[in-house]
C-alpha cells in the first residue's frame, strides 16, 4: 500500500465498474441507511479498487476485493469523529405495523442502531451470505469476534423489530442464532 503506479486500460476492470456497482450499492445502503452516503461509499470503494488495480496488487477476484474494501472503508469512515454514529435518541420511532414500506423503514432504522462493525457483520453474513470464516477474513478479525458481533447485532434487531412485526422476527432470529452457534455457514 501507500504508493501508486499509473497505467491505462483494463477491460476486466471496466466491466467490473459497469456491472457490479449496483450490487455494491445494495450492501452499502444497508450499512449506511442513506442513499447518498451509500453512493459515496461505493464510489470511494471503486476508486480504491481502481487505484489498487493500477498498482502492483494481484487481485484474483475483483468482486471479493471490492467487497472487502467496501466494508473496511465503511468501518473506517465511521471511526472518524466528524462522522460519528447518530445517538440512538435521534432515530425515528418505530413505524406503524403492517405495510412493507414501513417494515423496510423499520429495518433500516434498526440497522442504524447497531455499531458499524456489527452492521457490516450482519450484512456480510445474512445479505451477502458469507460464512463466519469468510466474514472474519474480510474484516480482518477473529471468527469468535464475528460470532459475538452477529449475536449482539441480531439481538438488537430482534428487540427493535418485535414491535413492528411481532414475535415472528424474534423466532426467526432465535433460529439464526441457534444455527450460528451450531454451524459455520
Amino acid at each position, binding site marked *: *500500500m*501507500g*504508493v*501508486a*503506479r*499509473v*497505467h*491505462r*486500460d*483494463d*477491460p476486466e476492470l*471496466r466491466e467490473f*465498474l*459497469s456491472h457490479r456497482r*449496483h450490487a455494491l*450499492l*445494495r450492501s452499502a*445502503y*444497508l450499512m449506511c441507511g442513506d442513499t447518498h452516503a451509500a453512493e459515496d461509499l461505493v*464510489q470511494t470503494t*471503486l476508486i480504491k479498487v*481502481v*487505484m489498487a488495480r*493500477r498498482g*502492483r*496488487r*494481484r*487481485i*484474483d*477476484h475483483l468482486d471479493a*476485493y471490492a467487497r*472487502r474494501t467496501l466494508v*473496511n*472503508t465503511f468501518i*473506517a469512515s465511521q*471511526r*472518524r469523529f466528524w462522522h460519528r454514529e447518530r445517538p440512538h435518541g435521534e432515530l425515528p420511532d418505530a413505524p406503524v405495523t403492517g405495510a*412493507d*414500506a414501513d*417494515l*423496510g423503514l423499520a*429495518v*433500516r432504522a434498526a440497522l442504524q442502531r447497531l455499531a458499524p462493525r456489527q452492521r457490516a457483520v*450482519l*450484512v456480510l453474513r*445474512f*445479505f451477502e*451470505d458469507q460464512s463466519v470464516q469468510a466474514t472474519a477474513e474480510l*474484516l*480482518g*478479525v477473529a471468527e469468535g469476534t464475528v460470532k459475538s458481533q452477529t449475536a449482539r447485532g441480531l439481538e438488537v*434487531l430482534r428487540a427493535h*423489530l418485535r414491535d413492528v*412485526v411481532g414475535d*415472528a*422476527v424474534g*423466532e*426467526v*432470529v432465535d433460529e*439464526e442464532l441457534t444455527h450460528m452457534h451450531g454451524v459455520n455457514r
Partner: protein
Amino acid sequence: MTDYTVRELMDKALDGLRPPSEDITEAVLAQASRRQNRRRAGALLATSAGLALVAGLVVALPHTANGAAGAAKKPGPVSATTHAAAPKPLRDPAALVQSLLPPGTGTVTKIKDLPPTSPPPGAPRTTVFPKSRLDGTYLVTKDGKVAALIVQTYDPKAVPAQWRMTASPANVCNEIPASWDCKESVLPDGVQLVQTTEPPGNWGEHAGTVGNVSVAYPDGRVVSVDALAETHGLRPTNFGPGWANPPLDRAELAAFAESPAWFS
C-alpha cells in the same frame, strides 16, 4: 403474521432503492487518476518545503552511492536496524538483496517480471516505462519454504524516465482498516515512512500475512517493499510451501527499504 428471515428483512430494507441510472465508470477512472496526481502534488510540495536542504545535498552528493561516506550523507532516514553500505555496488540484484537481509534469513533468487498486460483490441497502446534493474520479485528460500519480497523503486531523476510512483497522502493511516496496523512516521530530513501489516487474504485472495513499507524521500524518490509470507499467485509456477510469517519483521523491513543501495 408473516415470518421473516434476516435476509428477507434486509430485502425489505432495500425496497425503493433504485438501480444507478448513469454509468460512472469514466468518472471513477478519472477520479482515481486525479487522486494519484494529487499524491504526486503532495510529494512535490514536500520537496519544495525542504528545497534548500535537498538542493544542497544533491549538489554535495551526486548519485554515486558506492561508498560508505556518500551513503551516510544521503538524505535518508535513520533506521531502526542499520546496514553497512556495501563498499561497491553489487551488480547482481539478488546478491544485493541478499546482502541487505539479516544473516540467516534465507537464500535469495530473483524471478522474471511478468510481461506487461496487453491492451484490449482497438485500445491505444500503453507506454511501458523502464524500471530500476533492482525492481522485481525476489524469492527467499529457507528449509524448503519460500517467501517473497517485492521491491519497487522510483527515482524522478532517472533517465530514461521511470514508471512513476508517488508518496502516500498525509494521514494515510486514517483511510486504512485498523487491522492493518498502519503506522506513518516522518523521519529526519522529511522522509515519510508508512508501514502496514495486511492480514491474510487481503493482498491477494490466497496471500498470507503481508508486511509493507514505503519510504518517500523529499526529492521524490520512493521505495516500496512488500514482504509476503507465501508466494501463491505471484506466478503460474508453484514455488513451494510458504513461511508462517513474512521473511522480515517490521523493523527489518524498514531498514531494508531505507537502504541507500536502492538508488546506487
